[in-house]
């Protein structure tokens, strides 16, 4: 018991040696994205500060963690990176963020106005892209490749589609909202047939993409930049992007400062660093998204292969805010009812 107390004291004393800035994000931002480069650049600019990335889940799961920790009075993050636009209303309703001080974000001026929301009061965008379907060109024969959303219901595709859970993952939520925008009131009927056709619904995007890469399923929901990924990483288009009906759901990703942080100044410095061209230029080929900063240069291969859908789809955030929990509840009932 004495030893344990001692151990606890030592463990507790460790973080007290320097300032720690804890940043929550989704797992792929660390596993693929520019997280480590950001850490290096930030720690170089702020000696004595340690930047800690915490990313055990996809974005909605991480948002839930912050909300739970705020609600339960537990220690929590200083900064949250990686909130999809459609998740912003939920985060604001839960009072997660503190008001931003835009004068501390010098690089925000280079971000186009159409990506920014709510007068930059709580969150600022750092990248954007399109949720589409992708398929493994080596595993899915041409005649099975879906051209419309309705094609996903074909019985030949049974057990070949990987989806993400909209309750825990932002691409999953974006895909659900895309179908709601596409089908209107009839969206539950579509999902009642889609879910039995799917192989599985994963908690996050990382898991579903891993299943694709492992050859467990040839078709899934992912990003329109995956052809650029395939071309640059594999040297050939092993993954093809599908824009059924010419559509793709526009997704903008945001970041903000958590309400309880004692390090607001450092937190703003971090947001500004992520918006700087230095980091923004890493986003295309690590995060595989379009940078938010308009002055950031994009590699040619990326620009050539990243698909931009003919008809980008998005939903009005006020509509999302008003209906999201009812939609999720309906989706959940369809999921368990079959």
């Amino acid at each position, binding site marked *: 018991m004495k030893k*344990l107390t001692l151990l606890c004291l030592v463990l507790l004393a460790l973080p007290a040696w320097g300032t720690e800035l804890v940043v929550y994000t989704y797992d792929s931002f660390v596993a693929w994205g520019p997280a480590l480069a950001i850490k290096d650049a930030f720690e170089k600019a702020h000696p004595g500060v340690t930047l800690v990335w915490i990313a055990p889940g996809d974005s909605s*799961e991480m948002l839930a963690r912050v909300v739970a920790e705020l609600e339960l*009075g537990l220690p929590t993050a200083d900064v949250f990176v990686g909130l999809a636009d459609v998740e912003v209303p939920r985060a604001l309703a839960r009072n997660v963020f503190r008001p931003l001080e835009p004068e501390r974000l010098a690089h925000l001026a280079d971000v186009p106005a159409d990506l920014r929301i709510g007068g930059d009061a709580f969150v600022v965008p750092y990248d954007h892209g399109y949720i589409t379907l992708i398929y493994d060109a080596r595993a899915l024969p041409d005649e099975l490749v879906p051209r419309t959303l309705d094609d996903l219901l074909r019985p030949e595709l049974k057990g070949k589609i990987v989806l993400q*859970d909209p309750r825990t993952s932002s691409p999953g939520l974006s895909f659900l909202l895309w179908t709601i925008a596409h089908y209107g009131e009839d969206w539950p009927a579509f999902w009642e047939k889609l879910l039995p056709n799917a192989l599985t619904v994963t908690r996050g995007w990382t898991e579903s993409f891993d299943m694709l890469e492992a050859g467990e399923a040839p078709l899934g929901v992912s990003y329109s930049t995956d052809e650029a990924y395939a071309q640059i990483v594999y040297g050939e288009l092993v993954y093809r992007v599908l824009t059924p009906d010419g559509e793709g759901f526009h997704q903008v990703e945001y970041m903000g400062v958590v309400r309880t942080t004692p390090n607001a100044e450092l937190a703003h410095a971090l947001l500004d660093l992520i918006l700087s061209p230095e980091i923004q230029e890493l986003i295309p080929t690590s995060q595989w998204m379009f940078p938010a900063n308009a002055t950031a240069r994009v590699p040619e291969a990326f620009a050539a292969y990243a698909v931009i859908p003919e008809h980008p789809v998005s939903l009005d955030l006020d509509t999302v805010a008003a209906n999201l929990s009812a939609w999720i509840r309906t989706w959940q009932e369809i999921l*368990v009812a079959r």
Partner: protein
Amino acid sequence: MRSEQPNAPLWGQRRRGWRAGGAWALLPLAFLGLALFLPLWEVLRLGLQADGLWTAAPLRSVLGDPYIRRLLLFTVEQALLSTGLSLVLGFPLGWLLTRYRFPGHDALRAMTLVPFVLPPITVALGFVLFFGHAGYLNRFLQAAFGLAEPPIRVLYTLWGIVLAHAFYNAPVVARFVNVAWEAQDPTHVEAARVLGAGRLKAFFTVTLPALVPGALSACALVFLLCTLSFAIPLSLGGARYATIEVGVYNLARVDVDLARAAALALVVLAVSLALTCLYVRGGGLLRPVSSREREQPTVPLLDRKRPARLLWLVYLLPAALVFLGPIGAVIADSFLRPAPGGSSPTLHWYRIALSADTTPFLGTSPLGSILTSLGVALAAAGGALILGLAISAAVRRLRSRVLETLLMAPLGVSSVVLGLALLLAFRRPPLSFLPPGPWPLVVAHILIVYPFVVRAVGPLWESLDPRLVEAARTLGASRRLAFLTVELPLLRSGLLVAGARAFALSLGEMTATAMLARPGLNTIPLAIYQFLSSRRFGAASAMATVLMVTTALVAWAWERTGRGLLGRREKAFLASDSHRGGAEIAEPVERVASGFMPDDKAVRGLKAVADRLRRYREPIHSTTDVLRVSAVRKHRRNHA
């Protein structure tokens, strides 16, 4: 003949008895009040109050939700199916263990205890690796039969959960059946056979009816365990299948709707209390009564004259696949899964699992998780031993059913509810006054494991002949000395086993832990779950192998050093402050023993005391000296 245990009424004339017994009961009652009843009150308040008024509205709203109703239905459905499959898989194993002798019989019997300490998350991981679409079994079948598609698709379905539960619980059924069967008197079957019944008829009319109570009792326990299962449905259910336990977790930690979580937790609490009562009450009625006069005869399994017995292979081979496959897959995968460069076997996954690079995906460094796990398990085992001893003592002295039920209450509280209760209680005083640290985890684990200590130590203590202590007291030993030299050593084996088991259970606990986890507070099972749910299989296997090896090693080392430690303590106590050798008084004690109720358990006990005294050649304690004097005096009187 055997005298009754001395009773002390809770209230009444015997004030001394109440004081002594009350003191024993006070510590556990105070602890449970703060750590269990107060937190449960918080859940009750949150789940049954709206705007400060008591109302059933939150409960009604939760029970009216079609999604929650579906969860309840699914929970019952999978528990029933799991119980059925456990019975089907476990009964033959119980039969095999009772009726046949074969090489490895005792090892197999011992292995039926393994699921009691095997962490559920390692079983879940084993199932993903072994039965998964790209798992070992499918890959083998595809290669063997040239199949294009994986033939076995049980993962992320109802059947995956049921199979994993059966894996876990069939050995429980086997054990119950084995015990019930061995308690039967073989002459009954023989009588039936003599009276002309065929072998089948004798089995169905004599053997089977006598096994029904044991099997029913086992089924009640398995149903209870499967209803309250958490780690397996959480990891094997995918998005679609969830039990009510997982539902509470999702409401509290994913939707962060604490009021609804508390309301559903009350439903879970009612279910778990009801099932536990049913099992504890019913289990007592159904416990097999040993009526036998001799042991059950066994026959060799491998007999050249009886080739039909080889039909057991039809059961044994698939059973070995189901039981050994998943565990083997975890250990094999941790070494054999090819590293990114393609090399295999490799230690790459151990390096990954233990390196600081994985910290962002766990929320804590892997080494930090391991240290937290070990520290919490040590504290929980220590706390559970103290609490368990105090409760056993209190229940022994104050025979009160109410008190006993109160003191054993955590048995009926599901771990996820306990986690939620502590999560809520640690937000406000008095528990929020504790300095930051892993306290919520330690408290939760103590509450989860101490009932096992009581159940191991209580009956053992009860079975000790009270005259052993009485004899020592008459011989002049103080209550304390009598406890340390007579009772504690006799309880030692039970305490050691209970301590090791408490430690192992705490190491593998994931339900309350998942509810209480927060940044910087992570354990090994949670790390495995996080690796598994993000499909970092190699790292998950490495971590799970570390957990299984640690559990086995620690349980073994605990047994070894524990014996030594307890022995030293007794020795130190006897050796302190005195001037005579133990051997000197051992002899009179022995002589007293032989003149004192010959050929009785008490005599054997006294002889054991004498033996122990004789082993210490060092000078002995003055109290022991008194013991010697009075022993000699008593001896003289007896022989006068």
